[in-house]
């Protein structure tokens, strides 16, 4: 740990007879902000941040190394638990990469179902962000309202998959199970309700004097600097760059969906807040379109070399039994190659790099996590502004330390 920088001793900078000194303060890894175990070593000159060094790794789980030890199917629960608020996105990145390695086409119903769940997860992630960030900035009651909606989404997840979080719903080839009866009705109730709730959140925060003065004009980083730092997602869009992987690359059912990409102007914390709120509304639109246009058909691909056969066949077909046995014990073998596949997660570009060496276990799984790269922009956001602005920027940066540390 560095001792206070005596070289920064500034004799009486404000002419009022008081000498100041830059102090190095440690914030975290345990701190009241609910953003996970992030440690910040800040150099403070009074209340102004002069330098900031994030120290990460406090929830490093060695997921990438563990994945090399497991068959392809068993990797899915591991990679889900990286960025623990947007678990469907990690599943999609990994399953999409393996599908490209194997050359498997997923059926249209699975594409639509995946899109639907991804957008539900996006709303979930933004709700958790909004609740915890507003809590940090002092708007404590937002937490309860946001988590009320979040519980509705988790009820939907539980109805379809059996688990609230970490559902392992996506499999290579499609989704593991079709949606149950009653899911569509409950989902329609939710999407009718959600835009009303977003307007309620805006009513609470948008004209709140304290919230506005804490977020307007703070944490500004220019668009070019963000692009240099590799920042993607709502942070980049708030700075004015309309870059969204859902529109740029064709994957899943997004080409058939009509939705807008909200873009900010100034790039301050207020713009980031508005962009994410608008994204929630757009996600509701996508879910509605996916639900209306949900095609009939199988929910998972038919290729028995990679996908488990339906259980009803196991008692009648010997071949299915053999396929099932092989898939469950050894797993499928993937021809050698490497693939990088990336999608738009709620935080930015989430990429999955899989190297296959012909065996039934991946040789390397690497995730390009959005929060890990976005965290490099934090220093630019916080330097030369007050500590309180740093906290606001940290909230609006939306880091999830599970993704940062993997």
């Amino acid at each position, binding site marked *: 740990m560095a001792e206070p920088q005596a070289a920064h001793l500034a004799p009486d900078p404000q002419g009022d007879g008081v000498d100041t000194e830059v102090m190095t303060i440690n914030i975290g890894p345990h701190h009241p902000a609910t953003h996970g175990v992030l440690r910040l070593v800040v150099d403070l000159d009074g209340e102004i941040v002069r330098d900031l060094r994030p120290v*990460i*790794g406090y929830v*490093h789980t*060695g997921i*990438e*190394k*563990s994945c*090399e*030890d497991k068959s392809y199917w068993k990797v899915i629960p591991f990679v889900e638990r990286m960025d623990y608020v947007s678990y469907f996105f990690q599943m999609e990145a990994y399953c999409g990469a393996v599908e*490209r*390695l194997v*050359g498997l086409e997923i059926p249209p119903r699975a594409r639509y179902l995946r899109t639907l769940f991804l957008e539900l997860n996006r709303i979930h992630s933004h709700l958790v962000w909004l609740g915890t960030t507003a809590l940090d900035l002092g708007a404590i009651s937002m937490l309860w309202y946001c988590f009320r909606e979040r519980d509705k989404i988790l009820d939907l997840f539980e109805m379809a998959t059996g688990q609230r979080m970490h559902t392992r719903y996506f499999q290579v080839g499609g989704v593991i199970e079709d949606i149950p009866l009653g899911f569509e009705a409950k989902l329609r109730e939710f999407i009718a309700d959600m835009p009303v709730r977003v307007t309620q959140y805006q009513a609470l925060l948008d004209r709140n004097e304290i919230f506005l003065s804490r977020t307007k004009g703070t944490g500004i980083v220019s668009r070019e600097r963000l*692009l*240099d*730092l*590799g*920042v993607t997602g709502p942070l980049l869009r708030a700075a004015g760059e309309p*870059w969204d992987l859902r529109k*740029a*690359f064709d994957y899943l059912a997004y080409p058939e969906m009509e939705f807008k990409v909200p873009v900010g102007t100034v790039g301050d914390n207020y713009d980031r807040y508005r962009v994410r709120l608008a994204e929630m509304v757009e996600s509701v639109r996508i879910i509605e379109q996916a639900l209306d246009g949900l095609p009939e058909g199988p929910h998972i691909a038919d290729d028995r070399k990679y996908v488990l056969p339906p259980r009803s066949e196991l008692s009648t077909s010997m071949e299915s039994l053999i396929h099932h046995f092989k898939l469950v014990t050894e797993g499928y073998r993937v021809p050698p*190659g*490497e*693939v*990088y596949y*990336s999608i738009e997660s709620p935080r930015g*570009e989430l*990429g999955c*790099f899989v*190297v296959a060496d012909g065996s039934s276990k991946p*040789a*390397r799984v*690497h995730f*390009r996590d959005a929060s*890990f*790269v976005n*965290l*490099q922009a934090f220093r630019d956001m916080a330097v030369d502004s007050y500590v309180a602005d740093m906290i606001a920027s940290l909230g609006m940066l939306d880091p999830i330390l599970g993704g940062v*540390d*993997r």
Partner: protein
Amino acid sequence: MPDAPGLELIRGEIEQDHPGAVLDTSFDRDQPALVVDPDQILAVLTWLRDAPGQGYGFLSSLHAADYLPATPRFGVHYELLNRDRVERLRVKAMLDDPAAGDLPEIDSCVGLFPTAEFQEREVFDFFGIVFKGHPNLTRILLPEDYVGWPQRRDFPVGGEPVTFTFNERNYG
């Protein structure tokens, strides 16, 4: 993505300016990749970013993989993205494992792509690949005093065996 002929064109143009830089091209599963000589990696990346008509100005990801037992053993991958034409291109630099006690080295591209700062530290942390010219090459995710390069293939996964009744006496 630049398709297979496009990839060969790129290789040809790089050969004119930097002969011997591109060792191989591959177009596997619709993803183009250039295998580049690690000593000339900065030249190739600069060319790809700045040459008119190329414009791969966004480094999506910098990561490494250990291809043990194949040689060369380490591959450092640069996933480049051209946002105007929405095209991805992968650049691979293959590094050999030097004699025991030494670490493989490659030039750092933080000057070209500031996003590489954390990502190169992560590659150093897990594979022991040294990036020459990096402003602060220290461990980022593991404790600073950790010994070993965990994501190398010959590093054990770790953990401890699950104790059941039949083997619990062995494990204290």
